[in-house]
């Protein structure tokens, strides 16, 4: 058998080796976690950029029309997913409401019906008025609305993030249901 003193030195060296691997493991884990959590650690506001929906003239007063924008943070392999639709309501010259396509319930694409002046969702039956306010169905709030500005005759919106109940930093909630009847 080995000399006990030697043995205790080997036990010590084994422990030292485990400690060394612990340190190396941590050094390795930090950048890996940083890489993995990259999308999470970024500030929410940095995802949204001003992007154009085209010239203001495309949107006649009193109408709500579908418009598309290019995801400001797109990559070459996004394919068709980099073009995203939204609903533009032109209330008066220079006065707009731009709604996200996604239903506030579970994100399905809402469709506009000019005859009944309603947005309807095909999934669970969420319905919204023309100003985006909730009219019926399971959504807890009105449609998500993009901030907009007009620059050089272009209608610009601040977009880039899929709107959900917790990711709508730049998105406001439209007014409550209109006085009717």
């Amino acid at each position, binding site marked *: 058998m080995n000399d006990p003193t030697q043995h205790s030195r080997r036990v010590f060296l084994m422990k030292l080796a485990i400690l060394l691997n612990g340190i190396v493991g941590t050094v390795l884990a930090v950048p890996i976690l940083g890489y993995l*959590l990259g*999308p*999470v650690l970024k500030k*929410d506001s940095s*995802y949204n950029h001003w992007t154009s929906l085209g010239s203001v003239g495309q949107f006649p007063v009193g109408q709500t029309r*579908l418009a*598309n924008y290019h*995801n400001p*943070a*797109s*990559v070459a*392999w*996004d*394919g*068709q*997913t*980099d*073009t*995203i*639709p939204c609903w533009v309501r032109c209330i008066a010259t220079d006065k707009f409401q731009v709604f996200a*396509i*996604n239903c506030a*319930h*579970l*994100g*399905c*694409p*809402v*469709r506009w*019906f000019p*005859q*009944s*002046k*309603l947005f*309807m*969702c*095909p*999934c*669970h*039956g969420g*319905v919204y*008025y*023309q100003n985006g306010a909730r*009219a*019926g*169905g*399971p959504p*807890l709030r009105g449609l998500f609305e993009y901030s907009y500005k007009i620059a050089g005759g272009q209608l610009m919106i601040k977009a*880039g*993030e*899929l709107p*959900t*109940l*917790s*990711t709508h*930093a730049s998105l406001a909630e439209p007014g409550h*249901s*209109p006085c*009717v*009847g």
Partner: protein
Amino acid sequence: MRGLKQRGIELYRWFDRRIGLAGPITEAAEHPIPSSSASWWYVFGSAAVVILIMQIVTGILLALVYTPSASEAWNSLQFLNHNLALGWFLRALHGWGSDFMIAIVLIHMTQVFLFGAYKFPRELTWIVGVFLLLMTLGMAFTGQVLRFDQDAYWGLGIGASIAGRVPLIGAQLVHLMLGGPIIGGATLSRFFALHVFVIPGILLGCVALHVWMVLRLGINEWPMPGRLVRKSTYIQEYRNLTREDGVPYVPDGAWKDAVFAAAIILAIIGCAVFLGPVGPSGPPDPTIIQAAPKPDLVFLWLYALLAYLPPKLETPFLLIVPVLVIVGLLLLPLIAGEGEKHWSRRPVAVLMVMMIAVSLGALTRLATYTPWSPIMNAWSADPVPIKFLDGRTPLEQEGALVFQDKQCRNCHALNGVGGMRGPELDAVATRLTEDQLVRQVLQGGGNMPAYGSALSPPETTALVRFLETLNGSQTPARNPSRVLIRKPEAFSSHHNEPLNSANQ
């Protein structure tokens, strides 16, 4: 010939001297099981393993062609379906294999639960099994995303919307799930990594552990009413059982496993040949908003549940109930690790299984025709039944036009055709008086939007006149006070008054 056989045996020995697994494998194959367990009820676990092997093989074969890029995935699936010989068949095998896998895993779990097989000493086998179920569902969801079509795109939106309901870290979860702020290239790539590397890796490890424990602890014996499990005596009782009434697993039990596995694989092949691959549906182009996304069969019950839960309960339900269910499943063998195994003495267990099966079945059935969804083209596509137009005045017929033009039909059926979101209106005039109809149309209520700003007074008048004719063959509802206040002739001439003068 004899020399060839001798050479073969020598070759086998050469390998076994170096590998040394022949002994343990033979021992495991021939280990004694209770003769009652060599039953057709015990074939589901092994069938799941066989389907898993088929899924791995077909998955690898699909990966030879599939392109995990948001811009090309859909095209590569079309190529597999239409351009590559038997590509459609491999897709169909993998897709139907997934449905069969979930069915078999659920049947296996139910059988194990009803036979009390999760009790001592097989608690950990059950717990690992719960993780296997979760990973199987994870494979189904990520697989659905890899079929990167319209349904997958909006399905990801639904997933993100659910993740976004988590308090405090909702936004971070959405970004982690999508690989960025929005559904795009990064999203598909990470679901590919999950579906092909991460989940299968953990899954295979868990399957190995699960099977190892089944071999080590022995298969559950057929439960007998009144034969209780006690930690102090069970191991000895099981040992006695296998010694006195044991049969070798191979061949006594294994032949049934093998026959059932072959039947299941044949069934998958049958579905693949006759029903073909599922999708891809339309391309993942969000600008095509004429989409009514729906999840795959496995998650249809959830889709239905999200339509029927009261809106304010949805978030708590989505966040709390899954945690409770998973924790409940994990704790089950630790809480009920001893006692009765037989289903005839466990009425609560049987009732639970029946209740869950009926609920999931009913919700899935409802989600196949989604009565809660407006039918988006009913207003322009569904004809007004002739019996509702025949003999009507021009104003009433104008009302029928308003009814269609204002999309009422999207939610309300006539003669069984149209949306089912709201009530069918074939006999609405027997339920609501004229005044109530006017109020309901203009102000909405219940789940109905207010149409006050979308209808002009003449349109409202025409619409209500039309609705008043929908009384089946019964007397329409009338407000008695009107009859009392007005003279009969005044009441009959009332039909010519403009409605909105009285209601605005």
